[in-house]
């Protein structure tokens, strides 16, 4: 990584604030809603990991899910692309309505495969396939039946540019993905997620395995992506939430404690539990 700017230069971008009014559960929606979680509960067997959560996710905005370990934030995130369906004994209750098609993501009528095709995910640790850089990005496209050489190449390039990786890898697209650094691998995974033009991209603590410089690049990238796609990000790091997100939901023991504009949550939370967590008194 040669052109890495020093961390200090990564001043947070001015947070996009589409609403003049604070957004609460009952507030009138001004900006288009991309997805709406309604009374969602989730069970691992008999353990209820998400308890009756409701909140909106706005289109082309970044919503952060924060909270202490085990609060259910990752569990909630993984409901959006039905990852829980991969393991036995898991159960959803309630709805996640995806707009504009108004399909219930966790409903019995929705196919998990289709939901995963519409909602991409970036994982905690970079997990590129042991294939070439090109094939990593092209894989999702191939699954969707994109076959033409030139179309694949154009889309792969677009995705790699979108993930700010193109300049670094354009001369070695055929090389193995494991030759990249950790931060580059994670951006490759972001490119892989972007290539399929998802409606939502889920980030599950995308920088927890990276060093501060690589983290800075990823945060910068998320900041760019908000113009194109709806983003949900789970993070442990409250500074990260305050830097990259427009909205923040604070979860605790499976419940949604508070949801508001990020600026509001971090300056003037309305619940004392939120305030205690933000100020580092537990977590």
């Amino acid at each position, binding site marked *: 990584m040669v052109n890495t700017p020093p961390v200090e230069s990564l001043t947070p971008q001015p947070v996009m604030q589409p609403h003049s009014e604070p957004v609460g559960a009952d507030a009138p929606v001004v900006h288009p809603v991309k997805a709406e979680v309604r009374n969602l509960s989730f069970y691992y067997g008999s353990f209820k990991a998400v308890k009756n959560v409701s909140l909106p996710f706005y289109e082309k905005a970044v919503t952060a899910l924060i909270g202490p370990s085990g609060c259910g934030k990752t569990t909630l995130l993984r409901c959006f692309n039905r990852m829980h369906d991969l393991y036995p004994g898991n159960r959803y209750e309630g709805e996640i309505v995806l707009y504009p098609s108004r399909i219930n993501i966790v409903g019995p009528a929705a196919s998990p495969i289709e939901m995963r*095709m519409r909602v991409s995910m970036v994982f905690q640790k970079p997990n590129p396939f042991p294939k070439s850089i090109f094939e990593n990005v092209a894989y999702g496209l191939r699954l*969707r*039946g994109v076959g033409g050489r030139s179309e694949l190449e154009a889309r792969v390039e677009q995705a790699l540019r979108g993930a700010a990786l193109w300049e670094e890898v354009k001369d070695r697209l055929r090389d193995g993905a494991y030759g990249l650094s950790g931060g580059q691998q994670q951006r490759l995974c972001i490119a892989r997620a972007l290539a399929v033009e998802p409606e939502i991209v889920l980030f599950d603590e995308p920088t927890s395995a990276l060093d501060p410089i690589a983290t800075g690049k990823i945060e910068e990238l998320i900041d760019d992506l908000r*113009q*194109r*796609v709806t983003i949900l990000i789970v993070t442990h790091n409250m500074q990260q939430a305050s830097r990259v997100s427009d909205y923040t939901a604070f979860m605790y023991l499976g419940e949604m404690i508070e949801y508001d504009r990020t600026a509001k949550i971090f300056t003037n939370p309305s619940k004392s539990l939120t305030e205690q967590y933000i100020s580092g008194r537990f977590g």
Partner: protein
Amino acid sequence: MPDATTTTPAPLVPHVRRLSGLMLRERVVEGLLLLAAVFSIFITSGIVFILVNESRPFFRTVNPIEFLTGGEWTPQFADPKFGILPLVAGTLSTTLVALLVAMPVGTIIAIWLSEFAPAKVREVVKPLLELLAAVPTVVYGFFAITLVSPVMQQVYAWVISFFPSLKENYPELPLFNVLSAGIVMGLMIVPYVCSLSEDAMRAVPMILREGSFGMGANRTTTALRVVFPAAFSGVAAAYTLAISRAVGETMIVAIAAGNQPTLTANPLQPAQTITAFIVQASMGDLPHDDIGYQSIFAAGLTLFVMTLGFNLLGAALRRRYRQAY
């Protein structure tokens, strides 16, 4: 981002019909894979069914109690006797000799590999040692009668010169004997003992060793007093695997143990194992409805039950050691 589009492009989701086609293929593939997995149960059922079914006519002629307690096995006589005990004795005595070789040798090599040898040496030595288990058993049989047994005869002659009293009863070691066959079989099962026990010992957490070294113990004490006991159920599983291999081993004993079903535990004598009898009987062309044909299934059933017992014991031990840490 120069080429970032401002409008969301249409999502690249395949047509619903293509998705449902995919799902149908999923079902078909899963069904086929399940069929293959279930097939293994058919093999076991086939084994049990054939062994029981084909030995049923045998047990109509021969009383099962006599079969299990009889001390004479003379299927080729005009008045054949079918008492399995001589074959069981042959099987157990060859197994015992093999274990007396393989258990100490395998265990000591395993401890050395796990606790003393550098990683690089272990990487090279383990596959080499496993070659011992890959040698075709018929080759081992040849080795036993052309080299090991003649050498053992010399050794026996030398040993016996110190014990004149033995000389009267057993003047010399016959070429075909339990001892030589068992020793060679022991060599064959060394890797079975060694590989599994070494895995078990290396699975012992490092902190246990550090605890011992921290008190000033040397490597040998740590290996024998800490690591070996901690890994013992795994080692015991290796031993049961070795027993079941030895009990079921066929060609070495068919070639080198002498094929004489005598009820004796003396390893200096020839003997016949259950497996060797089955081979001997199969070499002649057996008519389907002959008592000889039926007897190999009765013998096989006995062998199957014996090994099944050892296998279940081994599986139980392995399960226990998996849960240990």
